[in-house]
């Protein structure tokens, strides 16, 4: 069979389509292996900055109660004893509040980074941490584009701390503590697919209220937490330059080369070794 340029591209296209369709069918609802991630939609226009979610989160995870802060305080970050913070930002549309926590990426960098699979993307969506497996190397922290995992630097038996989307509660059919308790309905827990639909509906219905961007829909290959905002996201301290594809994809090329190197290099070395064996006779006899 001869293959010209056009034929090649045709074949490539057909192969690509088959792969793409094949992939779709795996994720389609009637398939047995349905993977439907759950997530949370945060609407910054509804958040009143009461920080109730911080208290609920601390209670659910056994952390110390958050300290009271003035309404406009410096921008706080999550740390090893606090999985979520609500900050106040002065923006072009006045004060806007914004909640932060682990984003629960669809393809998390931390999970790809973990060499013991202690970081785990559960089938429901939350990214969880297993202390029995973790060796505390902190490669997850280096890799995470959102700096979500936090490490107990002042402990002899340190843990990695981050939002686990209240995975224990989810398993019993409840919703995460923050979303469950939010008095302003700023947090909505549900299937990620439905949340995106809902977010689009809100943007469509109130076009002057929202900017036309759902943060997390595509960032870092898609995240479990989705954000709606009245102002551009960089005003809320988000990195808007994050790549739209997944972070684990960055190391795929390297990792895929490993088997090839393991087959080709030894063969090549052995070949050169055999080929240069004659040199030994010509060279001076030193030892052996």
């Amino acid at each position, binding site marked *: 069979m001869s293959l010209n340029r056009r034929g090649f591209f045709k074949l490539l296209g057909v192969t690509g389509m088959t792969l793409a369709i094949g992939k779709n069918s795996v994720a389609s609802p009637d398939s047995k292996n349905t993977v439907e991630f759950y997530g949370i939609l945060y609407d910054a226009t509804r958040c009143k900055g009461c920080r109730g979610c911080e208290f609920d989160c601390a209670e659910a995870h056994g952390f110390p109660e958050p300290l009271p802060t003035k309404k406009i305080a410096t921008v706080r*970050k999550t740390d090893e004893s606090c999985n979520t913070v609500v900050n106040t930002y002065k923006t072009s549309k006045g004060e806007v509040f914004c909640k932060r926590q682990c984003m629960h990426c669809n393809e998390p960098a931390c999970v*790809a980074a973990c060499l*013991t699979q*202690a970081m785990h993307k559960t089938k429901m969506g939350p990214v969880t941490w297993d202390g029995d497996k973790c060796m*505390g190397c902190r490669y997850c922290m280096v890799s995470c584009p959102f700096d979500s995992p936090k*490490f107990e630097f002042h402990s*002899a038996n340190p843990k990695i701390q981050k939002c686990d989307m209240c995975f224990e509660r989810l398993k019993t059919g409840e919703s995460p503590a923050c979303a469950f308790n939010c008095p302003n309905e700023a947090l909505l827990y549900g299937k990620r697919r439905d949340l995106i639909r809902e977010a689009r509906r809100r943007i469509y219905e109130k076009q002057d209220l929202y900017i036309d961007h759902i943060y997390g829909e595509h960032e870092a290959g898609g995240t479990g937490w989705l954000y709606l905002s009245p102002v551009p996201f960089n005003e809320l301290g988000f990195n808007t330059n994050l790549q739209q594809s997944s972070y684990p994809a960055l190391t795929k090329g390297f990792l895929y080369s490993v088997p090839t190197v393991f087959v080709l290099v030894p063969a090549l*070395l052995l070949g050169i070794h055999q080929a*240069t064996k004659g040199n030994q006779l010509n060279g001076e006899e030193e030892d*052996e």
Partner: protein
Amino acid sequence: MNNSYQITTSQDGKSIWRFLVTELKPKGKFLTPFNLISIPIMILGLGLIVIRFWKGIGSITNLTQEIPWGLWIGFDVVTGVAFAGGAYVLTFMVYILNMRKYHSIVRVTVLNGFLAYVFYAGALLLDLGRPWHVINPIIGYGFGTSSVLFLVAWHFLLYMIAELIEFSPAIAEWLGARKARKILSGMTIAAVIFGITLSTLHQSGLGALYLMAKDKIHPLWYSEFIPIMFFVSSIFAGLSMVIFEGSISHKVFFKQISEKNHKAQNGIIHGLSKICAGAMFAYFFLQLLVFIHGQHWNLLGTPMGLWYLLEMLGFVLLPMILYFVSYRTNNITMIKVAAVITMLGVILNRLNVTVIGFRWDMAVRYVPSWMELVVTMAVIFTEIWIFRWVINRMPVLSDPPAWVNEPE
């Protein structure tokens, strides 16, 4: 001499245990300047390590939630392993290309490489928050095969074994174990081929570790080619270390080295300088290509851009030219100067990727604490102590015992 107790033959009938006990005792003068400097630092370092395991990593390091890896990874592991690259390059030259000229320095280089891996993997344990779980990726309590660190961890382990096998004939000669030596030397070529393959992957793997930190590393140092850069630079990093270490060893362990090898030393250094120059040319060219494709001209005027230019021109281009010129003029002193500049450049490059350029935009920058520095120095000194102990006992720099060349 040719009795059946081969282990005892070279020790005049002493039992192996008594032999080992006598060998454990220190040899030579004790109150040397090196000892006087290194002993207090090692003791202090040990004390700091105790505090670290008692109060946590944060008690003696300046690491933060944003900068989770500091000097211990960036220098001890990433830079140390680059310098240990001499072992795979030299075994490639001697055993694969059969360049006999370099045979006399293979053992000391392999020993250096082996000890470097043992100690830098050891330094890694200090940096692990939960080091008692270090065995998990080996025993499969979570095979994180999607992780570059998983690959690096396995490679460290396997490469240490490969280097131990490459070095083991020297141990057998020290113990006078003839049969064992014969078996172990027979394994050398397999260990070499395995070791070079592993090195190719984990030298580049150390760079690949940082691929996912795309938004955290300064764009002048981040590119998808970090793994290739790390691999190519490990060639001349390792060889420069061989030149540097060889020059010191030839002074410190003068008596152990045979007349013939003393004479050969300059020829070896001369030959290595050519390889370094070639590898550095390739590296410089690659860096140039990456820079042009990255289109970061606008960044050159910034402080980080000038820092980048200093690294590329002052610590890559300059030593490369020095290597070229001194190879042509056969200027051994200038080769050694070039080796030192190259090593500084490799330290600079690795630190720029892992520490200096990592989160360069943060308001509060990471600067290692003095305690991190002391622990790092303690690790290096301990390694040199072990190195010296081995050199003074095993036929590494000195010629192997006469029975090695005897016909059976």
